[in-house]
């Protein structure tokens, strides 16, 4: 089972809840903005603690309120692509890429650079990158941290239309070649239909 998630969390006056068991390579999580999609990714990454439930990915338990398991974010090995990218602004691309590097990744740095086409950006500061370039560097940074799964929060939202197709193909190659479970958040049904082998709708609370 690649994804076995059942969590709920009260935030302010609304409940964020999701139940999902699926053996899919890429699950698209869709729902209107404000439905709590990002909060859900934060719960899986360990940045937000659910009130109750469990999170198991590829057989590994990251969180289980009944068994009192709650791995720290650093120990979850999530490759998290944030909607706002979050490259470290005071480090060159090179250092951003190396920041989370862990042994055991399926790709070397050279392969990642080649795969993403970002070798020529190594000495640039993040502020000088375009949206598409920044997104590709963020993907590279996540891949080099030897993730066990990927969380993608609307990765196309900061990318101009012309570059979308390019990033979309990258994600398809990640899905098909890397064999990493991917949870992909979007509000665009067409994106979801093209990329996902399973679409989960976020209940509107």
């Amino acid at each position, binding site marked *: 089972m690649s994804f076995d998630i059942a969590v709920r969390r009260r935030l302010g006056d609304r409940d964020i809840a999701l139940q999902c068991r699926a053996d899919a390579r890429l699950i698209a999580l869709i729902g209107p903005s404000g439905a709590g999609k990002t909060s859900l990714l934060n719960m899986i*990454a*360990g*940045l937000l603690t659910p009130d109750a439930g469990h999170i198991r990915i590829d057989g590994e338990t990251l969180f289980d309120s009944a068994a009192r398991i709650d791995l*720290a*974010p*650093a*120990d*979850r*090995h*999530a490759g*998290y692509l*944030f909607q*706002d*990218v*979050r*490259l*470290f*602004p*005071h480090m060159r691309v090179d250092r951003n890429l190396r*920041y*989370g590097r*862990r042994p055991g990744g399926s790709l070397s740095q050279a392969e990642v650079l080649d795969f993403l086409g970002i070798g020529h950006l190594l000495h640039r*500061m*993040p*502020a000088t*990158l375009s*949206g598409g370039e*920044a997104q590709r560097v963020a993907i590279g*940074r*996540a891949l080099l*941290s030897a993730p066990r799964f990927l969380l993608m929060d609307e990765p196309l939202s*900061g990318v101009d239309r012309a570059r979308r197709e390019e990033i979309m193909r990258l994600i398809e190659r990640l899905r098909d070649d890397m064999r990493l479970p991917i949870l992909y958040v979007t509000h665009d049904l067409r994106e979801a239909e093209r990329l996902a082998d399973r679409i989960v709708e976020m209940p509107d609370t």
Partner: protein
Amino acid sequence: MDFSLSPQDWTVIGLSLKVSLVAVAAMLPIAFALAWVLARWRFPGKLLLDALVHLPLVVPPVVTGWLLLLLFGINGPIGSRLDQWFGVTLLFRWTGAALAAAIMAMPLMVRAMRLSIESVDRRLEQAAQTLGASPLRSFLSISLPLSLPGVFAGAMLGFARSIGEFGATITFVSDIPGETRTLPIAIYAALQVPGAETAVSRFALISVLLSLGALLMSEILARRATQGRMPHVL
């Protein structure tokens, strides 16, 4: 006007620089810790801590000096122990002048650092954690470097404040030439002597130049800190 400096004048300037540098260096980690606690932690009594930190800014400096005298004097609760355990006396020593300057500089240093810490995007720290960074590494590699301009700005501001410190210093460590006679105290002493206007204006000019230099540095660093250099983050 004669602006050549006598050996005694150089002693005053050297002492002022020494006192201020030591004051800022000693206060730097304490001020950063206070700024961090005030910027990041939530706890009961935070308002009180904030007020205590700001107290030297609003209390008459002579009162601060008097409190230092009570605490660090020969019979004070801290002063007597320092003397007993380490053989250290601050009273009437340049180290006491540095302590007074540090206390007076503290509010300004904490303020500048706190603003800078608050402006660090905490989502970057979260990103670092998902990439496997421990809280310590995330602090050292993300939070600290990003708040460094504010730390420098605070240090410069504290230095400028220390150079000008008078009231608490003269109350706590008095006016001892070569030991505690810093620039402002030398100016005050010269004012008591008829016909020493040249000395007064010399010292005054030096004070203004030193403080102005430190303030300008502080302003430049603060601006650099707030310049938008993270369009993909905000």
